[in-house]
């Protein structure tokens, strides 16, 4: 049974009581909240995730506490509480889901140091992973969402998780966060995509989330072999451009993109080196999603053919 099969009222009841358990693969989070609208949003965006009894170990126990800000005419706010502590300022109550997602991101980036963590989208096709590291505003999430809506398995929109033991990519499946114009662009590109409510005028502008596909959720414990590294750049009206990136520069860009490279030291050095040596790295500039998806498919085809010949 998955979360979508549960009536929204039951999701709300769980959020108010024992909590709603979200099994994302790498982490399992327990969420509690009385914020109006959160149950509906989670029901829609986490619908494909398994429903469990919310027992056993959770890596994160997060509470979105509803409160009043009496310095601002008693406006309703949500406060993200992590194991009872409040690491951030409260936000307007209407931004409950972005607050939850940003809070979970912070938990992962600051705690999950058994693996190399890159700020990157990750998708896979036939077990081969495409790593999309980027700074905010580069079109990483848009490209990740476009690929995920064209048959690629989503591993993560936010974290490239490299397992140090074998340098494979681990899934951390959660909704894809889109901002501003990319929301409508993705809706046009993939009308069948399940997109949640749009949260207007947040700190990051308008934000909406795309639900991972059922297949991506089902494969949330299956690692992928890294095959491609793409450094994306969305540029309105730009013609598609795909340029190979020198391996040395790729190393610098990937390591500089990590949340915990310096913390992991030599193991991170080894992981990035293996990643660069095992992948082909490209800078990809795009404005048209159909074109860029086709280009990524062609690049991945080139990676598959040598494997087939060698078998």
């Amino acid at each position, binding site marked *: 049974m998955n979360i979508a099969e549960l009536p929204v009222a039951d999701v709300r009841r769980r959020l108010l009581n024992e909590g709603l358990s979200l099994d994302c693969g790498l982490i399992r989070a327990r969420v509690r909240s009385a914020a109006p609208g959160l149950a509906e949003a989670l029901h829609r965006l986490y619908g494909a995730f398994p429903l469990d009894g919310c027992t056993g170990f959770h890596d994160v126990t997060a509470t979105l506490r509803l409160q009043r800000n009496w310095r601002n005419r008693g406006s309703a706010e949500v406060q993200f509480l992590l194991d009872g502590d409040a690491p951030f300022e409260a936000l307007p109550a209407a931004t409950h889901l972005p607050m939850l997602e940003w809070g979970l991101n912070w938990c992962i980036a600051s705690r999950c140091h058994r693996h190399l963590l890159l700020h990157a989208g990750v998708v896979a096709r036939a077990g081969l992973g495409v790593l999309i590291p980027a700074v905010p505003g580069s079109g990483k999430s848009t490209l990740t969402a476009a690929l995920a809506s064209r048959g690629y398995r989503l591993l993560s929109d936010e974290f490239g998780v490299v397992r140090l033991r074998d340098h494979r990519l681990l899934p951390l499946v959660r909704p894809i966060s889109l901002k501003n114009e990319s929301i409508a662009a993705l809706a046009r590109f993939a009308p069948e995509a399940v997109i949640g409510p749009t949260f207007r005028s947040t700190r990051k502008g308008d934000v909406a989330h795309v639900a991972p596909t059922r297949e991506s959720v089902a494969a949330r414990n299956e690692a992928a072999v890294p095959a491609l590294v793409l450094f994306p750049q969305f540029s309105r009206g730009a013609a598609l451009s795909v340029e190979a990136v*020198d*391996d*040395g520069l790729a190393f*610098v860009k990937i390591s500089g993109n990590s949340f915990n490279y*310096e913390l992991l030291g*030599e193991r991170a*050095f*080894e992981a990035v*080196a293996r990643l*660069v040596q095992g992948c082909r790295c490209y800078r990809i500039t795009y404005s048209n999603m159909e074109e860029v998806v086709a280009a990524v498919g062609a690049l991945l085809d080139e990676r598959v053919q040598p494997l087939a010949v060698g078998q």
Partner: protein
Amino acid sequence: MEEAGADSVRWRLAYPDRIRVVRLNDAAIVFNPLSWQTHYLNEAAQCVFDALTDGPLTMGELIAETVDAHDQLSAKETDEWTRTLLTHLGDLVTMGLVTREAVVMA
């Protein structure tokens, strides 16, 4: 700065057995196990670094290692190349990858 051409000091890799190097096309990426910092060496810095992998060298020996034997450098060219090498050595010392030691005269 070192006196150009002086052979009173020898340069050596700081931790030759522990420094990790990965070669990627024209670049070398080096991990310093003491500072936990990673350094990108361009082709020129790599040339100096590689010359020191077999053991400590004086400036004269380093010049001989890094200049093709068929190239006869003029005194001016030798001075220029020495200054270039010293710049790279200075950078490598700052990174903690290379140290200098005094040559003990017999």
